């Protein structure tokens, strides 16, 4: 089977840099990398012939020349303001930057770069790194490179009051780059933690970001995982989260997808015990020729688990969004409650949404639903606002903000809320400028 030229370039690159990757000399890690690269070599990057990738094409990567130099450890970067007084880890061009990070001690929390924990935390890290997602080529590719990312470890019953922040910034050099961090969130029984992960990039940069985050939510723990994707306009961004939720545990995910040329945020959740809960929400704002993909796979494996999903977005220009939501209810998983909704505002004639809800139900006593809508702004509402003196651009903005408000209300009073409202406001202003031009 032939693989794409970008896939070949990735394999060549792996050969070139393997001896510079984190964790040299750790035998089990070398074994994992080798298995991962073998797995990736068999399939290469997925093409639209693969059902799960039918709507999102990674061929832009074939135009990237990955003969890059390693990340610059001193690159200057404009970082956004911290969202609060919590600890912050900063990675710039793939390199952990101690000088830009704020490491603060909290009782019951260990928050470090992965490279610091590969040896000392092997007992915890190794079994979780082994979970590569089998036949998923992007996870395999990430597993081969396995670059430095973040690790959050929360002790049993620890409730972390501060919001943990991680910034992945790309300064946008001349050469295309590939960043493949592996992250981990491990929440002990009864613990509670909130994390904001921000992805930034310089406007013209050609970056391939292929991140992976392994989340373990133990009994009765709550993890709130927020992701803000604002990569550079030339970037290809794939971020895969695999979460395993134990009894009474809650994994609460929110993603803002706004940047990159092609982006996919994929959340795979296993609800493995009673009363485990997954809440997956997202907002996407697309313009130009962007492709923004949100994919979710929720597996209800045992009785009485619960999942809720709400993804809403606005698209203009010839932007396209993809929503693929899969809820699978295994045999015997009675009492499952699984709900999924996707709604899109199409603000231009050429904007497009491909929405594919999927329910696979093998149990009898379940409540599952899905709904999807796509449409333009309501003309009646627009006229009503204008008849009350509100100029057209402002009236359109109000209606878009009101539409997205339903999702944003889900993170009300969190540090991410004002950031989201600003993002929507700025996006609208920019979209309206572009329309007038």
């Amino acid at each position, binding site marked *: 089977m032939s693989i794409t030229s970008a896939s070949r370039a990735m394999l060549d690159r792996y050969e070139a840099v393997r001896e510079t990757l984190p964790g040299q000399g750790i035998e089990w890690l070398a074994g994992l990398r080798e298995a991962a690269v073998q797995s990736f070599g068999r399939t290469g990057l997925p093409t639209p012939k693969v059902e799960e990738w039918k709507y999102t094409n990674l061929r832009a990567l074939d135009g990237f020349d990955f003969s890059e130099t390693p990340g610059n450890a001193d690159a200057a970067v404009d970082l956004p303001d911290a969202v609060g007084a919590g600890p912050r880890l900063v990675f710039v061009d793939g390199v952990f930057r101690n000088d830009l990070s704020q490491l603060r001690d909290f009782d019951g929390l260990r928050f470090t770069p992965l490279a610091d924990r590969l040896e000392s935390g092997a007992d915890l890290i190794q079994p979780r790194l082994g979970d590569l997602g089998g036949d998923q080529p992007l996870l395999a590719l990430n597993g081969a490179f396995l670059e430095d990312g973040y690790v959050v470890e929360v002790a049993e019953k620890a409730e972390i009051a501060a919001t943990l922040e991680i910034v992945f910034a790309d300064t946008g050099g001349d050469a295309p780059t590939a960043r493949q961090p592996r992250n981990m969130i491990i929440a002990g029984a009864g613990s509670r933690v909130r994390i904001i992960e921000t992805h930034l990039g310089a406007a013209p940069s050609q970056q391939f970001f292929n991140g992976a985050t392994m989340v373990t939510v133990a009994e009765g723990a709550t993890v709130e995982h927020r992701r803000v994707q604002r990569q550079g306009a030339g970037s290809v961004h794939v971020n895969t989260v695999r979460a395993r939720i134990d009894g009474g545990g809650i994994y609460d995910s929110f993603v803002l997808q706004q940047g990159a040329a092609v982006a996919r945020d994929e959340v795979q959740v296993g609800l493995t015990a009673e009363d485990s809960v997954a809440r997956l929400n997202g907002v996407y704002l697309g313009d130009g020729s962007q492709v923004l993909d949100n994919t979710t796979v929720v597996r209800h494996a045992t009785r009485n688990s619960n999942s809720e999903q709400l993804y809403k977005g606005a698209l203009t220009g010839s932007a396209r969004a993809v929503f693929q939501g899969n809820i699978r209810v295994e045999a015997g998983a009675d009492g499952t409650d699984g709900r999924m909704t996707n709604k899109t505002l199409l603000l231009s004639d050429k904007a497009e949404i491909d929405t594919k809800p999927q329910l696979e139900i093998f149990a009898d006593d379940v409540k599952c639903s899905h709904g999807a809508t796509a449409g333009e702004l309501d003309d009646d509402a627009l*006229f009503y606002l204008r*008849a*009350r*003196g*509100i100029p057209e651009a402002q009236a359109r903005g*109000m209606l878009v903000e*009101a539409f997205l*408000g339903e999702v944003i209300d889900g993170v009300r009073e969190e540090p991410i809320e004002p950031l989201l409202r600003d993002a929507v406001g700025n996006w609208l202003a920019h979209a309206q400028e572009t329309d007038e031009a």
Partner: protein
Amino acid sequence: MSINVHQPEEFLKNMLEIKNLHASVDGKPILKGLDLTMGPGEVHAIMGPNGSGKSTLSYVIAGRDGYEVTEGSILFNGRDLMEMEPDERAGEGLFLAFQYPVEIPGVSTMNFLKTSLNAIRAYRGEDELDAMDFLKFVREQTATLNITDELLKRAVNVGFSGGEKKRNEVLQMAVLRPSLAVLDETDSGLDVDALKIVGEGVTSLRSPERSMLVITHYQRLLDYVVPDRVHVLAGGKIVASGDADLARELEEKGYAGFSKAAA
């Protein structure tokens, strides 16, 4: 440099001056030569059977897309209304109370009122009201209309009863203080009690600076808002005009005679 243009006094006497108005919807002529002149502070009623063009007239005045003026003119305070966007018309002092107020999920009634008022103030070059002043101002208006703070927090018209929607229209009129209010079937869908609140609310907004054009099928709102002039609209034009007695006459005898006259 500014140029002061002398306006003849008679010109200023007319707040609204509609001449030979022809308008079409989807290429179908609805208004066919309508003439109407209103002075400041006057209340006129337009009555007519279903399909006579009443709602078309209100939408043409407010500037809704799809209502095409093919002939004639509308002057509002001496200015050509047809040249203005709907929001500019509101800024100039025009207000349409909708027959079917629109639901806007996700926008609170309070925010809607505030944004509207400030947009109109901005159009007129006035400063925005701050939150406290605005709240005080709105509370003054809600008391007589029996509108609760709870309703102001709800999304615009979402889940409102028919009476609440119409009271909300009157509240908007009270807040925005137009110089010309067009009330499109504001009495429709109201029970007796709601009609009383709306009727008294509208009446309390009568003033020498505010004209009202009350478009209605029935006499009942006019028991509260007694008009200076009553016009019968049939077949797309005014076929008869008179004083308040004409409305009562129509209530008794119906529109049959007038519809025939227009045909």
